[in-house]
């Protein structure tokens, strides 16, 4: 761990928050619609009747389309990374991610069945995806409980994932051409549906759960030593496991329902945070949240800018950039 940053917690937190804020402003000021930077203060400060038609248009683009999207990207990135960090602590394995216990595949199955059986309007799709993720996780948890330790949960998760995958295959087979295309796009993920209403609906809830999860940092630190050791240190492991799984499912379920599958953030970002700051969950969890927010805001920016006036699917960008970046991190650490 040669490259770990040796700076105090408060400074690191301030730094990351600062970077995130600057990034939010920067990415919100760029997009397919060209808005001159010099015009932005006027747009935000002047009264609506004083603006010209053009300025009115810019203001609507900025405030109604870009801002909710950029904020939603930050929220989604933070939540995905935090959930990833939590799962990695819970499974005591750096390869763990929320998908491991069926959360993502349950959501996908819910979405797929909504698209094929229910017409696939967002009003059906989102609740179905949410329900799917919660059901799959609950099933994995209950089946896995019969086995001692995390191995049971892991095995049950693998089985649930396999079953969800095969049912998805069945629905894909039954789907017609239009439904197939909807499926493909859902699986690639998108932040294009971000609106203020959705942000208001999901934001407070997800932030609350996130803070709740961060409060378990002591228990996660104890888990680093081993399950038995954590138990001897006075943590009720069984209850803790259930609580954390429920919290992660409550984080990821609604998010996946709203955005579709956005891969790689939950796996890679906690890793980067750990390489930078070490494994102390007191700082790792907030750091993962902030880094995840930064990563997804950047990825969404690239998705919006790369092929103007069209747009890349966000899931493609996160995997396309996250994968090589992660490899580079791994390789550069060794030398």
């Amino acid at each position, binding site marked *: 761990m040669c490259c770990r940053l040796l700076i105090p917690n408060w400074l690191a937190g301030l730094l990351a928050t600062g970077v995130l804020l600057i990034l939010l402003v920067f990415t919100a000021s760029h997009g397919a619609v060209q808005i001159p930077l010099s015009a932005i203060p006027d747009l935000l400060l002047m009264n609506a009747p004083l603006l010209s038609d053009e300025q009115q248009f810019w203001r609507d683009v900025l405030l109604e389309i870009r801002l909710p999207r950029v904020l939603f990207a930050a929220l989604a990135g933070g939540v995905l990374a935090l959930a990833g960090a939590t799962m990695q602590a819970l499974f005591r394995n750096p390869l763990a991610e929320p998908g491991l216990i069926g959360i993502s595949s349950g959501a996908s199955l819910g979405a797929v069945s909504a698209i094929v059986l229910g017409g696939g309007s967002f009003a059906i799709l989102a609740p179905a995806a949410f329900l799917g993720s919660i059901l799959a996780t609950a099933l994995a948890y209950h089946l896995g409980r019969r086995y001692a330790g995390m191995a049971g949960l892991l095995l049950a998760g693998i089985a649930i994932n396999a079953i969800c995958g095969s049912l998805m295959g069945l629905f894909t087979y039954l789907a017609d051409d239009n439904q197939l295309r909807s499926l493909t796009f859902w699986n690639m993920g*998108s932040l294009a549906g971000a609106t203020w209403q959705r942000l208001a609906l999901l934001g407070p809830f997800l932030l609350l759960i996130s803070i709740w999860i961060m409060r378990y940092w002591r228990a996660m630190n104890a888990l680093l030593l081993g399950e038995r050791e954590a138990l001897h240190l006075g943590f009720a492991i069984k209850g803790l496991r259930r609580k954390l799984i429920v919290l992660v499912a409550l984080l990821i379920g609604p998010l996946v329902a709203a955005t579709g599958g956005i891969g790689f953030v939950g796996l890679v970002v906690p890793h980067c945070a750990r390489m930078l700051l070490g494994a102390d969950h007191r700082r790792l969890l907030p750091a993962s949240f902030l880094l995840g927010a930064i990563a997804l805001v950047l990825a969404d920016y690239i998705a919006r800018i790369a092929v103007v*006036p069209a747009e890349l699917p966000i899931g493609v960008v996160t995997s396309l950039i996250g994968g090589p970046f992660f490899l580079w991190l791994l390789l550069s650490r060794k030398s």
Partner: protein
Amino acid sequence: MRIYYSLTTILLLFFITVFSTLALASAPRVVSLGGPLTEIIYALNAEQHLVAVDQSSVYPAAANQLPKVGYYRQFSLEGVLASKADIVLATDQAGPPQALAQLRKMGIKVIVLPGQANLSALSQRIRGVAAALNLPQQGEQMVKQISQDVKALQPATSTSTSTSTSTALMLMSRSGEPEGAGKNTSADAMMQLAGLRNVLAQQQGYKPLSREGMAALRPDVIITTTSTLSSMGGMAALLARPGLAQSPAAKNKRVIVMDDLLLLGFGPRLPEALRQLMSAAK
């Protein structure tokens, strides 16, 4: 030399811009989200209104020169806004729905038209596009012309071959393994209009075909598209394919190959497509 060249280019560009701004001064700026709608706009000779299209708009070739705002199912909201459109023409599969709602909120007229592959939906599409472009008469005339042409083509089949209808199998392939077209596909609709009996009428949509399943179908005619034929390795490979080789169609070499968009697009070229299909199936 180079200076002259660039000077002329600049001059030309200048004239083109001036001319087009003059021509467009009062005309609506239209974005089309869906290849079939783009094709109708060109068929109405109203392409000067088009300022951007989606990625499925590949016919006619001129549509490829326009800015593309993404695939119609997941078009870029800001891309459409950047084109300063007044009107967005979209098929009913365009989305995401929130993005369409936001376009409406920003004061852009969003017109959603049915995307199904049948004559009445085609008429609705044409009428909808024509109305949006202030060309209702031209639209009405095109609808009339198409239904007349299609009707003129039909009696020839329904009377002469009503008892001995040819059976047809439509093959589609994107990755080499062919899929057969069942009910509720534009291929099935074309077969019905052409008076051919679809051997896969029991099946919904496109499904992969096993070799044995294919052999059991015994179609008189095989219909396929140019892109399918190339992904299957050409005509010889198709005819030699186990399961297909034994069919009456392969034995008599009755394989109809048509351009993908012409055969399946259900656009203004429908009569032409039908004519080609029927004369080849005769």
